[in-house]
């Protein structure tokens, strides 16, 4: 039983970490008033970038390349929705399509039409002495690749920045009342663009985790809808960085449960577990789980 629980928590963490990376940046972007449907594209871009980076410069190069590729996609998205004031939904869809197409084509063009797997070593697991020996939760929380610890640091920094600094306050103002924020001297466009680049970087890191810490290879379309899950996670986490991580764990647990049910051969409709987090998100939005409110100016471009 304890063995099963340990495995279950480890599986939860494995699903939750890439999702939490992507959702963390998405949370910041949405607090600034931009809904970023291009997050899926940044994940796949980061995944592909990390493979190239790692095969040329080693694992550290892979992590950096993932962040850079995600950041580039975030910056391109920012050009369209911030500079050109394009519709955020359509521009985001286009970014995702573009990244899926580019990575798929580049992968096929570089590694053959068969898409023969290019394997790279995965990041080593770093066990924290003593803590990782705690029964049940120890391995899931304290025997992780370095990227998981990076996530913890990023979440703490992001939460502090968003809620405890002037710039964070200004960004939140951009998401609630951009015109008032601009009147108060906030550079709305610049802050939003910055938030989008950051969202791209974290989503890219999420994609990098998939390759560098988990599979050790790239597959076409391996982001597999995680970007859309990340958007749900931000809502369920009530637009706060820490809440986002908790919501990511919930999605991770639901997915792990589903795998266990399928493996055990029990005749339960495992699809229910996969749908459950989304249903919870909808219920939360309908006000069944306390007050959940999106930033007031979410999805709107700043008018001149």
């Amino acid at each position, binding site marked *: 039983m304890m063995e099963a629980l340990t495995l279950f928590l480890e599986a939860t963490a494995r699903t939750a970490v890439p999702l939490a990376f992507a959702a963390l940046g998405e949370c910041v972007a949405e607090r600034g008033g931009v*809904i970023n449907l291009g997050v899926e594209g940044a994940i796949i871009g980061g995944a592909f970038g990390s493979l190239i980076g790692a095969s040329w410069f080693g694992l550290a190069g892979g992590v950096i390349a993932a962040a850079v590729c995600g950041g580039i996609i975030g910056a391109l998205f920012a050009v*369209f929705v911030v500079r*050109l*004031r*394009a*519709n955020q*939904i*359509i*521009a985001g*869809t*286009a*970014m995702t*399509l*573009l990244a*899926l*197409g*580019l990575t*798929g*084509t*580049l992968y*096929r*063009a570089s590694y053959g*039409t068969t898409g023969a797997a290019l394997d790279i070593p995965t990041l080593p697991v770093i066990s924290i002495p003593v803590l990782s020996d705690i029964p049940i939760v120890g391995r899931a929380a304290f025997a992780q690749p370095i990227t998981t610890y990076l996530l913890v640091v990023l979440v703490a920094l992001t939460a502090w920045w968003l809620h405890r600094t002037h710039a964070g306050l200004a960004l939140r103002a951009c998401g609630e009342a951009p015109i008032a924020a601009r009147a108060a001297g906030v550079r709305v466009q610049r802050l939003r663009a910055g938030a989008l680049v950051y969202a791209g970087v974290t989503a890219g890191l999420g994609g990098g985790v998939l390759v560098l810490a988990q599979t050790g290879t790239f597959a*076409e379309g391996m982001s597999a*809808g995680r970007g*859309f*899950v990340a*958007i*749900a996670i931000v*809502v369920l986490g009530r637009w706060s960085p820490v809440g986002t991580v908790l919501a990511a764990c919930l999605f991770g647990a639901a997915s792990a449960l589903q795998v266990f049910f399928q493996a055990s051969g029990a005749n339960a*409709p495992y*699809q*229910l577990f*996969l*749908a459950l987090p*989304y*249903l919870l*998100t*909808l219920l939360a*939005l*309908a*006000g069944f789980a306390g007050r959940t409110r*999106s930033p007031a100016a*979410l*999805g709107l471009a700043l008018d*001149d």
Partner: protein
Amino acid sequence: MNYTLARNATAAAVVVCGTLALLAAIVAVAGYAPGPALEALWRGSFGSWYSFTSATLVRATPLIIVGIATTLAFRAGVFNIGGEGQLLVGASLAAFVVLGVPAGAWSVPLGLGAGAIGGAVWAAIPAVMRHRFGVLEVITTLMLNAVAIQLVGWLVHGPLQEPTHVYPQSATIASPAQLPIIASGTRMHAGVALALLLAAGAWWFATQTAAGFRWRAVGANPHAAAVTGRIDVARTVFIVFVASGALAGLAGAVEVQGVALALYESLSPGYGYTAIAVALLARLDPRAVVPSALLFAALEAGAGAMQRDAGVPSVLVKIVEAALILVVLAFDARQRRRLAVAVVA
């Protein structure tokens, strides 16, 4: 009128030539020969009567119907991006009803009606949530797309699974429930004609009726629409939402009864999402949805042939689709700026 027609024809020609040039350029940059690739693309999409009807038109059908749904919704300021989920639920309900009711002359309309109802119900959820709780439909429709995928997965592994319980799909629907083939020797079914009729009807509705005008007024400026005192904005938004869902659901029923002939998980290769691009390229004009859908359908139909015959990865077409969308967005931004300058001056 003739001027508009000429301008639209020019725009369409520019779009098609631009798309082909871009495709050729990307193919060349990726290290393949553009000539054979374009030739294969042509063969797979327009090159023969069979490929035009069975590959391009059949693929364009759901794109036209969901494209209209998206056009009408976006025009009214309803950002329903749940076309994919509404299509899947419509397909599920159509399959459920058609398989459950003894087949007969009524089976085709019954299935199509069930599809529309399924899509409408699935769209009513975000419509109510927007109305009651002020929740952004972008988020809710996206969530419901994910739920719909799981719903189909459950149905084809559970209650609707075919009798031998081997394959994750429903039983094949009886032939009276299938949409008739309207060109012998091809896979072109009556849904193709239905889609064209719907496009014409949507154009007529949007531009020639009072209700269509109200829908557009609500989208153009909800506050102005409300102060006229003659338009119930909340009610209009709800109706638009449900109607666009019904259309998307109908597209799902058409897929089940015309193409798939059973319910399975990979029924839609993202038609609901591609339809957003289709509607955008059509500049939210129901008439233009047809050529726009044909272009996207031809690209996807041709992509398969390109991979098979010229060894060019079919996923490459996605870059072209994305570039098309981005060019339109950039073009829009430029026009807006010109307009703003004109107003100031």
